[in-house]
């Protein structure tokens, strides 16, 4: 009996207080105002509990995001002065391999010869390098298929059929502009955000 009465009161209280909230809260002082105001407190207390739970849940979820030390390493400076034409280096950006390649004039010519319309992911070499630094190809060393590290950056590694990079996992071939030419990879090797802070230093990220 008590329980039903209690429940019915809570339920009608929720309905009523919602109604009074949407209509005109100033009318809640009338005859039935006492009842309404009292039930409003129950709803308010429950709502506060909900708000409190959410505001504690947020930091508990946010803690899984990258921490300050990880974010601080989100940008990397690379000195490219020691890379001779035709050579490439593998360095680390955001805990993943980054390829920096000094293209030879022949490689630049090979990349520019290909009409972009024939490509799976149409991009020109110009799109993929910085103005005035066409010889510097900076890409992530992460195959766009399933994330293996393609070969071709270190001396003596297979460069694939198009002289760029070759991913041994599932046989994707990239050309000298890091564009996908053959194999399962859907897109070109990703070019991260970077800028030349001096003629020989790039800041990635």
């Amino acid at each position, binding site marked *: 009996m008590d329980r039903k009465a*209690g*429940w019915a009161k809570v339920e009608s209280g929720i309905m009523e207080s919602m109604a009074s909230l949407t209509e005109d809260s100033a009318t809640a002082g009338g005859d039935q105002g006492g009842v309404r105001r009292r039930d409003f407190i129950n709803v308010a207390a429950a709502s506060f509990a909900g708000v409190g739970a959410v505001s504690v849940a947020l*930091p508990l979820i*946010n803690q899984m*995001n990258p921490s300050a*030390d990880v974010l601080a390493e989100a940008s990397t400076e690379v000195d490219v002065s020691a890379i001779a034409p035709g050579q490439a280096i593998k360095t680390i950006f955001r805990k993943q391999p980054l390829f920096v390649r000094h293209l030879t004039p022949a490689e630049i010519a090979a990349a520019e010869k290909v009409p972009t319309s024939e490509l799976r992911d149409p991009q020109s070499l110009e799109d993929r390098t910085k103005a005035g630094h066409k010889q510097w190809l900076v890409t992530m060393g992460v195959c766009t298929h399933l994330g293996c590290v393609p070969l071709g950056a270190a001396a003596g590694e297979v460069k694939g059929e198009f002289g760029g990079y070759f991913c041994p996992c599932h046989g994707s071939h990239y050309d000298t502009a890091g564009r996908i030419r053959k194999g399962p990879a859907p897109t070109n090797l990703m070019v991260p955000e970077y800028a030349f802070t001096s003629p020989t230093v790039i800041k990635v990220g």
Partner: protein
Amino acid sequence: MSFPWANEYKPSNAFTRYLDERLPLPRFVYNAVGAGYPVPRNLNYFWNFGVLAGVALMVQIVTGIVLAMHYAAEGTIAFASVEHIMRDVNAGWFIRYAHANGASMFFIVVYTHIFRGLFYGSYKPPREMVWHLGLVIFLLMMATAFMGYVLPWGQMSFWGAKVITGLFGAIPLVGEPIQTWLLGGFAPDNAALNRFFSLHYLLPFVILGVIILHIWALHIPGSSNPTGVEVKSEQDTVPFHPYYTAKDGVGVAAFFLLFASLVFFAPNMLGHPDNYIPANPMSTPAHIVPEWYFWPFYAILRAFTVDFFFIPAKLLGVLAMFASILLLFFLPWLDTSAVRSGHYRPLFRKFFWFGLVPCVIILAWCGGAPAEEPYVIISQIASAYYFAHFLIILPIIARVETPKPLPNSITEAVLANHAGTKLQPAE
């Protein structure tokens, strides 16, 4: 559950009807902590502390799981990984301070819960099993808290681990092999740190399991109440929900208010500064103390300073410390008075408020103080009283005391209580 007038769960729609036939979980919850559980109508705020202990455990489990995502249990980096949490992890300082102070909150709540049981005779038949399971939870909590304190691998962590495992070394013959086995080495190191982390993660879930048994056992006779008179009719009870969910809401809000004050404004007040010094096996802190919630037991441990013929004082201290907790298991048979509530036991009440309570507070104070006079003598006298209270005084009181007349029913007690105070008409 146990009373014939308990509300019955009635599924309100097709989905809950479907569920009720296949997995009656809503029915179970309804009968356990919902409107289907009739509870004495006269519970005071001390009866909030069971629910609060559950809240504290959940806080510890949630914050603990999160901390374990960032903590590294390896001697050379454990301390640094905690500092990483404090400095670099998003809201890491909040989560760690919440976990560290959450342990203190848990013990504050559980100690209040235990003393509530001691005063109101909640350990007496038919609720002995509730009391025994509660003590098991308390022992598991102590083990969990101790191992958790080792994890930051500060000076107090290290030396606490060394001293507490050293207690086992006091056992004759097998003591030293046991100590070496517990540590996985001759002193606390990686092996100990890793197993403590593993068990510290496991035990809270064991506690959760025993809590379910604790509540199950409670629901057989139903909750006790401040008069200690059993429920006689429907008039004596109210459904748990919404009456006690509302009352527990007040307790929960007050709990979080105190908790937040600690976490945000005095997060290191209950900790020891030495634990911000990385563990150093070559240098002992000037004054090794456990966390505050172990102080009474630590005082009993140190109170034994004189060998008893062939029994060394160290072993006596260890035995007494364990005995001080284990004797609580025998309480239902030591206090044989038929009257449960301390309210109706004039003599018991005097010894409770002027004997046991100050005794435990004095023990705590001595346990946190350095091992020198006058603290040692005071802790010896207080420890002596502690054992005498439970093992000698309580059985005697039960025999010689004339209890005050009990009310005929809970409702009668409530009415008598209200007769004195002017009632406000309902709005």
